């Protein structure tokens, strides 16, 4: 099913999104990948304040290529989500509601998603030029020294994703795991 959803995700939207839905997201996303996750996690562990509000947001696992003059961003496709798995349950417990990446998630992440009612979307890996067209503005909000891994706030319009794991824990990838049927 095709759905047009605005961000931040609302509770009823999260409930209605099912694994396999094709979704066009519009609104605010935050980027974070390996190094930013590590810093967020360490900040949480040591009770420091975070500059980004985790509650209710959607994270995009993405580190863009530099923008050419006159463009808002360079190539901007998803990175492999499983590298964030170590940190994700903690973030979900603090209110993270949506994640965009590519590839499988751990059992711990799925359980934390069910418990906290969150959604994991996949964007098409390796389609960074195409996906960049849906990004309308970019602001660096935290960890600027990390370069491409800094946390950015993005404004997106009809950003194309597919629900892979829904808030009931149904995982679309389970259907195509390479086991002979």
């Amino acid at each position, binding site marked *: 099913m095709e759905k047009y959803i605005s961000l931040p995700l609302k509770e009823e939207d999260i409930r209605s999104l099912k694994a396999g839905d094709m979704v066009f997201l519009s609104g605010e996303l935050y980027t974070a990948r390996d*190094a930013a996750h590590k810093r967020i996690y360490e900040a949480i562990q040591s009770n420091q304040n975070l500059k980004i509000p985790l509650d209710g947001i959607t994270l995009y696992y993405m580190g863009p290529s530099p923008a050419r003059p006159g463009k808002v961003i360079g190539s901007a496709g998803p990175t*492999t989500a*499983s590298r964030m798995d170590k940190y994700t349950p903690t973030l979900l417990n603090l209110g993270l509601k949506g994640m965009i990446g590519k590839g*499988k998630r751990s059992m711990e992440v799925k359980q934390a998603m069910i418990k906290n009612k969150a959604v994991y979307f996949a964007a098409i890996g*390796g389609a960074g030029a*195409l996906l960049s067209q849906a990004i309308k503005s970019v602001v660096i909000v935290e960890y600027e020294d990390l370069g491409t891994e800094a946390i950015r706030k993005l404004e997106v319009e009809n950003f194309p994703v597919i629900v892979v794991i829904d808030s009931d824990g149904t995982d679309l990838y389970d259907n*195509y795991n*390479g086991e002979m049927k």
Partner: protein
Amino acid sequence: MRDDENKVRQIELTEVTKLIKEMCIEANHFLSKDVEDSICEAKEKEESILGKQILSQICENMQIAGKEMIPICQDTGMAVVFLEIGQDIHFTGGLLEKAVNEGVRQGYEEGFLRKSVVSDPLIRNNTNDNTPAIIHSEIVEGRNLKIIVAPKGFGSENMSKIFMLKPSDGIDGVKNAVLTTVRDAGPNACPPIVVGVGIGGTFEKCAILSKKALLRNLGERADNKNINELEKELLEKVNQLGIGPGGLGGSTTALAVNIETFATHIAGLPVAINICCHVNRHSTRTI
């Protein structure tokens, strides 16, 4: 003495730097024709509707990349550079390794490519210029210099594996190693993938062979008849896994299985599987 001097060809290293720079930019914006054709062909043949849609978005992505000069993928890779150096060449004006790295530095800066390299694998500070490159050089006959620049993304690199099989594992062991690796890679490696396989040699030799296998034209099968057949059989089996484009199901899991082999030890059967996403980038120049 004079004859030898006449034979030696001088290559100014600034020329190498300039070429590497151009090739880094080219490889990240334009796929070689064989890869592009292979993806478009897969789009026609794909059986899953969603798979077809994903392949068509991958094609559209390539067009946008070339037209707007936006890298095909934001992971513009670690620069892997293969050099085939004719033994009658003499490089002037510095050190070859420095010249290659300078080309990578300039290419990644001027081409607005992502800097994805950290100087120390544990401390992890970004070098901010995407150097150092991984350089493989080989001395060959003649006076030509062949350069291949293959920026390698790590979503797929991370899903690659090496197996030190026993001789008794034989060809079935090799097939099993390839299928297990592709199955474990699943959606993570951005399918449709290209599977580079190295068989034989030593631990490191088979890994380099598997990387080299990724550089071969996708439509070109191995010269050796047995290996040629193994490539075809494995491609068919890989595509029967049903992982499909984006890992969301379909008949196109891989575009090609390319295998390179080398002599090995009586006690061993090393197999390396280097996975590459559909953004199978390489740019080649010979001077």
